[in-house]
């Protein structure tokens, strides 16, 4: 999309892009010759259409971060979470707890670790959790346990 100052017959330049505010953007263009300015005001659908292209109105000064669109647009709330607790801090507390709790153990993996003799179980569990985290796993499944065993040469 381009803007033309009709009296001057000259292309207009982007002056500023403000928003989104409640889904709307205000994009101001001005004529370099006569100084006349116009603002394009987008509705929610128009804003969303532009955002869906993965481009930035007003231009970019740096390269997009890897998976920028995915990370910026993916909603990470389960539908039940958004309509569950009415406490405003529930999500924050749950997230903080999850961060500090270490990797989750699947039911099958938990059964398998329980089969390890009790006097070494804690040590093995810790080793598996540390290695799984290094490998980037947030959940320990039987497959992850096999992978960790292979990695540790067990």
């Amino acid at each position, binding site marked *: 999309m381009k803007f*033309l100052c009709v009296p001057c017959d000259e292309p207009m330049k982007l002056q500023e892009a403000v928003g989104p505010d409640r889904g709307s953007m205000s994009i101001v263009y001005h004529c370099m010759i006569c100084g006349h300015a116009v603002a394009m005001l987008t509705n929610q659908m128009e804003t969303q259409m532009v955002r869906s292209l993965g*481009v930035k109105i*007003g231009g970019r000064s740096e390269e997009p971060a*890897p998976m920028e669109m995915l990370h910026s647009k*993916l909603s*990470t709330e389960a539908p039940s979470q958004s309509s569950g607790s009415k406490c405003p801090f529930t999500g924050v507390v749950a997230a903080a707890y999850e961060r500090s709790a270490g990797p989750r153990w699947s039911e099958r993996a938990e059964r398998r670790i329980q089969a390890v003799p009790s006097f070494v179980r804690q040590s093995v569990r810790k080793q598996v959790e540390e290695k799984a985290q290094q490998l980037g796993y947030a959940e320990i499944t039987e*497959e992850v346990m096999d992978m960790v065993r292979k990695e540790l040469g067990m």
Partner: protein
Amino acid sequence: MKSYHDIAADGGSNVVGQVEGQVARLRARLRRVRHVVAVMSGKGGVGKSTVTVNLAEALLQQGHAVGVLDADINGASIARMTGVRGFVPRHGPEGVLCAVSISGLRVMSMDLFLPGDRTPVMWDAPTQQGGYVWRPMVEMGVLRELIADTAWGDLDFLLVDLPPGGNALANLADLLPELAGAVGVTVGSGVSQLIVGRSITLAKEIAGVEVLGLVENMGPHVCEVCGHSEALFGDAESVRDMAHVHGVPFFGLIPFDPRIALCADRGIPFADTAPDSGAASVFAAMADRIALRLLETDLVAQ
């Protein structure tokens, strides 16, 4: 008065330049991938993902470096089937690190970004109303990022597991002109063959993609006890004939083997579990033929 075409730039946003930058990033990533092969059907439920994973394992066993991209954004299943669910993609020096399965497949899937089993893929927007207009655009953008921003390393093959829908291959071919070809998957039913047949026509005649071959999935089940063989979908219409009609190679018939689904559920390679099975031999033969065909293409290109 000047027209659109008389004015060189867009006044400051450089939208065209930004889109060109996205494409350049994709091209740069794919320079380290020798062959991109899509697995398609157009029809849901025929076992595209199962064929993708097992074909990838067969290529891996031949000594190739293989990546699998789960292009089914809303129905991602590859992470589970390769046993890498729970892997959290982190940023590395060359991009986002992909998961590596126990056998060595490099995997990227939308599933790895979802926080839990009950969280569907939802995109933040001021309103979800009218999402049917912009959601496909976001999903194509995310698919582009999953390919371009993943640190795949050097790959011989990148297999792309497509979602159902006849247009999926055409969209991918638009995004990736480097696409070396596609593998068609169908089951024996006439309904499936009708839809897959249309997808093959679309691939060859509209998208201009070579269909490397067609494979029939979920073939007859052979009883382990008495050896009786029973077709799941009847045998009225032959997939071999269908391949012939469409002028594409027939890769063979994968017998129905419950162990394939069991391995997929557990995320372990079927080829390791049942290396001597009929299904494993079909996957191995497919891998041979695809590798050979693309080697020929390489030689011609040189």
